[in-house]
Structure formats: C-alpha cells, structure tokens
C-alpha cells in the first residue's frame, strides 16, 4: 500500500500534464470546430470545399503523425516555418485535429435542425446570426451531447500519444516506474486515473443531458 502511495506523487505529476493537454485542447478545438462547421455549411463553394479538405486531412492522417510533423517538420516549411517547443507543438496538433472531429459533430447537429426553424425565425425578422445564436445552436447542443461525450472521452485517452514527444504525461510517468521497479502495478494505477477522468466526464455529460431533457423536439 505504501508502495502505491509513493508512486502517486510522480503519477499525479504526469496526470497534471495529461489534464493540461486535455483542457487546453478542448478550449481551443471547440470554438475552432464550431467556426469550421459554420464555414463548412457556407453557401460559398470555395470556403466549404477547403474546409472539407482540411477535415479530410486531419481525420485521414494519424494524430501522432500530425504531432511529429508539427514538432519536427514544421521548422523546415518555408514561410510558416516555426520551431515550437514540445508541449505547444502537442497542443497545436491536438487542437487542429480535434477541431476537425468537433466540426463534423457540430455540422451534423446544425443540419439536423428542421428548415422550419430557420423559416419561422426569418419570418419573425431574425438575422442569420440571431437565428443561429438563439434558435439553432441551443437546439444543436442538446442533439450533439452524446457524440460530444464520446469524443471528449477519446481525447482523454489520446493524450497518452504525447509520449512520442518525450513529454511526461500520466502513461509515461507510469511506464518510467514500471521500468525502474520491474512491476506492472503503476499501469493499474494509471488505468484508475484514466477511469476516474472518464467517470467525471460521463457524469458531467449525463447531467447536461438531463438538463436538456426538459423539452422534446
């Protein structure tokens, strides 16, 4: 027992890296995803096609590859070439990648709202922006809660990919102890950490779903 308590320190250190990556990614990728979704449904062909291409690229290549590219290859790209430190590079890759997935969830949510809602809003004099903000988005949120919950849980676990940039996240912290002490117990403790994070998220989303259950479509 003391052994487990002793490893909690370094594992908690790792967990803070994981949590930091998780929250910063959410804060960046949610608004970016929403903007991408709105551009994706734009009337302007060129805009929606380029966003489509972006989503294809980000969903079509491994997140790990994107991370490695931003960290190692980006400095050599002309014009935009910058050398990012490891953690910011990971953040950029995660935010850009998750924004693509969130964009598709938002788009599906927006497009599931009936045409009649737009029409009645327009007939009442709403502008497009007012319609989106007051009528479409609030209804969209209710509908996208289940896929959102899925995606954020995936994000919790995807954070472990940053070990490739030699960052000491939860999983890497566990592995360090495993290699030092020749015992697999740290893996179980790490698993418990991930499960707790997932549990909190699941509970949070359930509460949200309940709150939105006050009305039916």
């Amino acid at each position, binding site marked *: 027992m003391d052994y487990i308590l002793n490893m909690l320190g370094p594992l908690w250190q790792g967990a803070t890296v994981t949590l930091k990556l998780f929250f910063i990614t959410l804060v960046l990728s949610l608004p970016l995803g929403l903007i991408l979704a709105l551009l994706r449904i734009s009337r302007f062909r060129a805009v929606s096609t380029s966003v489509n291409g972006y989503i294809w690229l980000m969903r079509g290549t491994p997140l790990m590859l994107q991370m490695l590219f931003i960290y190692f290859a980006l400095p050599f790209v002309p014009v935009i070439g910058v050398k990012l430190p490891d953690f910011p590079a990971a953040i950029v890759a995660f935010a850009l990648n998750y924004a693509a997935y969130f964009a598709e969830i938002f788009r599906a949510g927006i497009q599931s709202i009936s045409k009649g809602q737009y029409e*009645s809003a327009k007939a*009442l004099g709403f502008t497009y922006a007012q319609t989106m903000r007051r009528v479409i988005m609030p*209804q969209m949120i209710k509908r996208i809660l289940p896929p959102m919950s899925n995606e954020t849980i995936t994000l919790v676990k995807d954070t472990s990919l940053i070990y490739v940039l030699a960052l000491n996240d939860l999983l890497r912290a566990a592995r360090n102890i495993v290699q030092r002490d020749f015992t697999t117990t740290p893996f179980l403790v790490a698993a418990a950490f991930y499960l707790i994070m997932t549990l909190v998220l699941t509970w949070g989303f359930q509460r949200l779903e309940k709150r939105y259950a006050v009305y039916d*479509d």
Partner: protein
Amino acid sequence: MPFTTIKPMIDARDVYKHFGGLEVLRGVSLSISKGEVIAIIGPSGSGKSTFLRCLNHLETIDRGHIEIEGELLVETDEHGKSHYVADAEIRRICRKMGMVFQQFNLFPHMTVIQNIIEAPMIVKGIPRQEILPRAEVLLEKVGLTAKRNNYPSQLSGGQKQRVAIARALAMEPDIMLFDEPTSALDPELTGEVLRTIHALAEEHMTMLVVTHEMAFAREVANKVCFMDQGEIVESGEAKAFFASPNHERTKIFLKNML
C-alpha cells in the same frame, strides 16, 4: 396631400417562380387592402403556399413586382431580371407581415412565453419587462395563459398553432399570412384555431389565408382567390364566389371539396 391614393397593404404583380423545370407561379397578381381578409384556395400543388412565401421572402421570385404598404420589395427590369432591395430593407419590410405555418414551427427549446417574447426582444430590442405584459395579453387572447410555462412538446396541435399566432402577433405586424394553418391538425382541433383567426378578422387585421377550409373561407374572408396550376383562375367576393363560381375549373374544385 390631396392626390395620394390609399396604397394597398400588399401589391403583387405578375409574379413568376419556378422550381427546376416546374413553373409554380405563372403571373400571379394580387392586392390586399387594409382590413381585408383574402382566402386563397386551390388544389395542392397549385402554387398558393409558394405565392404566400414569396410575399415575405421565404422564397425569391424569378420575375414580378411586390410592394408592401407602398414600399418596394422586388421589381423586374426590362430584361426580365428581378431586383430585390438590400437585405436590411427586406428584413424591415417583411417585418410588417407575421406568418403562421402549417407545421407551427415553434421553438421547441423555449417555453410558450419565451416563444412569444423572443422575437420582440431580439429583433426589436424591447426590454423583457416591457414585452412580458403584452405577451400575457396575447396569451390570454389565444386562451393559453395556463400553458405559459409549458414547452411546445407538451401542447396539442391546436394549442401550438394558437401559440404560433400569438408569437407572430407579438411583433405587431400590420398583415398576417396564414399558410394552411389547420392542415396539420386533427379535425376536432381546427375549430379553436379558426376561431382565433376569426377573432382577428373582427379586429380588422389584414389577412391572407391559404386554406382548405371552405366554410371558413366563406364565412371569414371578404374575398376568395382560386388558384390552379400557378395562376389565379378566379377571384371574387366570398359569398358570391361560392354561390356562383364562373370558371369551369373552379366549379370542379368546389364540387370535389364539398
């Protein structure tokens, strides 16, 4: 000004509209004066709903001319190309008209009272405490004060439609457009909606009603227009129209409806 004439509330001339290869409106002209109630009847697919939707810019027209209370919404140049006024103008002009839809289209995430106050607050910027008492009066008028805090999904079809009417009235329109307001309702629920519209007619609200309710059209409308295949085939004073239709197509339609 001695030479001004009274402008019609809506003046639509020679409106053409097509969807793909289908010509849905083929030169429809109609004008409605203040306080007048016009019923538009006709078989499904005759273009009557489309025409109504063109008036408040839910559909754009190909050719023609529409003025609302003397203000130009769209006109057509000598090359047959239509020109709408600027977007902000369109919104301002179309706000003179309230619309009630067949499918109600209430906002499901808002309670009844929120549905009613939302547009005045957001679109007109009226403070909540100012619009609330007016909304309560409207709710009472449509007989739904008790449902004030319910969500639309908790209402019957007839109640939803009455909320939709109150919601449109909250924007204080000069004209009300009704697009088959009772067609999605169970027969026993049409009465409450029709009575609400009837009450509005008695307050001299200018109304354009697309309907399949012939008895209602005869009783409430001043004038009836019969549309078929994208044209107004015949129109006239309501009672006379039903008593002695002139056109063969009108006769057949009315015979089938009875």
